[in-house]
């Protein structure tokens, strides 16, 4: 599995991009100690002009590099938490719907369709407005607007697996249906979900950026979306303030997508081999 991943060029490029970003997020307090929102230098310093502020400073004289490093952790924490939530919720609902069948399936699928028909970002807006802007409400909002994809994929996998002989065998052994579903069938249905994980993480990073760009992110945390929004006020004179965090978002999402393709290739190879 790992060998196949390594042999995929996309996957390795993605990993080489993603690892430094994760490291930067983890080591942000060490790499740039202190409050990233503190005013530390002259205002609106251009990038590469001063070695102390390699990426320049913003309107209030805050270091862009420090904000970028600290923003990485906010972005990745939200994305990882929301993706875990969405995949977890989607897997549970997809498994129950696919294995139970009948009315339960019908009801859960209507629920999934309802969530799919509501524009996810508007749902996220509504949720954040109800719960107030915080890291937790952003995570919940992204979770609730992105669990439907995983749910449908898991249900389809479970449907194709539940007629197999090994399911009947466990039934004869006297296992309860949901026990069979979650302990025996689900593990076999997981590969496509793992592939989907990268898609969900990438989407979560973009939604978080959009929410905090609109000023609906956690007010106490510096995020890339918020940096873009703050740079907007001086877009004419200092476009680099909005450009730099945007490039960080692109590189991160690109890296996640590439890693996803690598995983996809590794799993596809395994399936062909099996």
């Amino acid at each position, binding site marked *: 599995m790992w060998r196949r991943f390594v042999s995929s060029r996309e996957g390795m490029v993605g990993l080489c991009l993603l690892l430094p970003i994760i490291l930067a997020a983890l080591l942000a307090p060490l790499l740039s100690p202190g409050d990233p929102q503190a005013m530390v230098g002259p205002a609106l310093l251009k990038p590469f002009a001063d070695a102390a502020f390699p990426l320049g400073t913003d309107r209030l004289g805050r270091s862009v590099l420090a904000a970028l490093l600290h923003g990485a952790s906010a972005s990745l924490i939200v994305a990882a938490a929301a993706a875990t939530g969405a995949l977890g919720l989607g897997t549970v609902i997809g498994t129950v719907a696919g294995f139970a069948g009948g009315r339960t399936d019908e009801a859960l699928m209507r629920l999934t369709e309802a969530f799919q028909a*509501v*524009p996810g970002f508007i749902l996220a*807006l*509504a949720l954040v407005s109800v719960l107030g802007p915080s890291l937790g409400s952003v995570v919940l909002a992204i979770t609730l607007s992105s669990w439907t994809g995983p749910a449908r994929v898991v249900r389809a996998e479970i449907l194709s697996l539940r007629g197999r002989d090994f399911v009947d065998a466990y039934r004869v052994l006297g296992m309860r249906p949901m026990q069979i579903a979650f302990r025996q069938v689900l593990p076999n249905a997981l590969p496509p979900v793992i592939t989907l994980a990268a898609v969900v993480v990438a989407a979560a990073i973009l939604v978080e950026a959009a929410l905090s760009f609109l000023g609906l992110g956690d007010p106490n945390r510096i995020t890339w*979306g918020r940096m873009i929004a703050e740079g907007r006020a001086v877009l004419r004179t200092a476009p680099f303030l909005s450009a730099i965090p945007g490039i960080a978002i*692109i590189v991160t999402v690109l890296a996640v997508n590439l890693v996803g393709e690598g995983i996809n290739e590794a799993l596809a190879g395994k399936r062909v081999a099996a």
Partner: protein
Amino acid sequence: MIPVWRIVGRRLGNAVPVLLIVAIGSYCLLELAPGDAVDAYLSGSGGDAGLVAQLRQQWGLDRSFATRLTSYLLSLLTLDFGWSVAFSRPVREVVLDRMGNTLLLMSAAVALSFSLGTLLGVAAGSRPQSWRDRLLSWLSLALYAAPGFWLGLMMIVAFAVKLSWFPLGGIATIGEPRAGLEHVLDVAWHLVLPASALGLVYLALYLRLMRAGMVEAWRSDYVRTARAKGLTRQRIVWRHVARNALLPVITMLGLQAAAMLGGSVVVESVFAIPGLGRLAFEAVTQRDVPLLLGIVLAGTVLVIVINLLVDMAYAKLDPRVLVS
């Protein structure tokens, strides 16, 4: 053969419970919001306890939750979406006013991303693994990773501030009412940047899908047959490979409708376009719950209708779905 209208009927039948779930779900969700319409209404002016109680009674907010939910659902049946506190107008009017601009922006973005995306997809997929294919694939991956609002801001810097080719924002030139063709051209000129910002992200999606479909189609038997018949490469690419690769792209068009509507919220805010998306943001910042509910429902109906249209187009292109 099942006629197309049977599919339409079945789809609409499914839409009823979906809309009911969305209506009840979002009503319950927004009920959890701190403060009610009276608080929002009086937040600017203030008012004594007597006025608050009087308004609550007038607007029916003193009744139980179940009564209010039932009366809301019943009024939805008569297409009454309630009263917008922020705009002091019926929600339906406010939403319909703004819907046009959003539909315009979305159609322009879809037209751009779909046509350019499939064309570039054909260019990439007609010779898989060539340098042209590699270049386009990497470019599309990078675009697909970009936030639409950021692309919009960067386009404003380049094409509106530096080059002054296009306006900074808005949907039409203010203060100069134009008529007829001149107005149409003015709106089109204003839409170029926002539609590109919204559309470029999805362009990548269609490009990749089209390319993947074409790579798949090259391996199929009918392409080998076409080659054996001695058809030109050009004809094989367009008539045999591209045509079959188009089907999954059409499906994606419907699947992306909801995402695109969400994307237009931010793009409309960047370009100051008075559309449904910016209205949603305004409803959130002004705590206008009935308006937000109306927007969620209108957006849902829009997504359902778009998917229905896509299904019908698909049935036209691939009659196989009508059998079975």
